[in-house]
């Protein structure tokens, strides 16, 4: 009986460890292709800050934030106002796709950096 309890606990622990990884699974090539197509790299370098923050700094900012994916997806589809590097405020470009899975894939790639 005790053995069964330990076994169940171990399985639960394994699922809890794997589940977050599955939730943020992404295909890097697909993500980069979408970013290139939408000129994302014109304003965001992976490591380089340009008109917008670098993607690595975005990942750092949102690390451990369970709402990160939802927030960033909304950022890309809503055209919400963003603060640019030089301090001016401007609507962020709305990503040119209606495929939410593709957008989530891109966001999860960014968050993985």
């Amino acid at each position: 009986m005790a053995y069964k309890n330990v076994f169940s606990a171990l399985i639960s622990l394994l699922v809890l460890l794997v589940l977050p990884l599955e939730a943020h699974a992404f295909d890097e090539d697909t993500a980069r292709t979408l970013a290139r197509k939408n000129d994302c790299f014109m304003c965001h370098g992976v490591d380089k800050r340009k008109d917008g923050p670098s993607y690595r700094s975005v990942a750092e900012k949102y690390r451990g934030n369970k709402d990160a994916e939802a927030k960033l997806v909304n950022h890309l589809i809503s055209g919400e106002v963003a603060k640019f590097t030089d301090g001016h405020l401007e609507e962020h470009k709305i990503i040119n796709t209606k495929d939410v899975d593709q957008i989530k894939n891109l966001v999860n790639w960014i968050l993985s950096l």
Partner: protein
Amino acid sequence: MNNKVNVIRRVWRFLKQPSSQYSVLLIAAVCFIGGIIFWGGFNTGMEATNKLEFCISCHEMRDNVYKEYKETIHYANRTGVRAICSDCHVPKDWGHKMLRKIQASQEVWGTLTGFVDTPEKFEAHRMELATNEWNRMKASDSRECRNCHSLEAMSSTVQKQAAYQNHMKSKAEGKTCIDCHKGIAHNLPKEYRDPDEE
């Protein structure tokens, strides 16, 4: 064979001899009008090869780059200003246009030999084809872009601030349109890497 040679000789003799029937003025007028008709016909034919319908008469263009272009701002936009194939890929001024048309005979050869006549072949050569165009545009300082777009005509109040600043910065740095605006009308090749994505 002898008959043919005789005809050629007779025609040549006729052309060489001075006119005894027609005045210089009449001959000049006929040549002038004939020249206009010829030149008009030549240019009409040349402009026919600049039409969208002509470009997409080749399935390689119709099934690949034309489909992609239809999803972009150069096809449909807020103001209804459409750029067709020749607006970006054929110079407007006569000299450069003639050179481009002569170059384009390679493309006719490519069509005849099936260089990119399947989607797979097209994708395999996309980077090569795109790079050729990017290099051509870079060498001409994006001449065809500038037929419609002018940095001097960009309004700081109407254009988005980030875009305007980048445009003025590119002007100061001597950059050209195609340096930043690759993939504006057709899909980027899968091998393409943005300089800032690493």
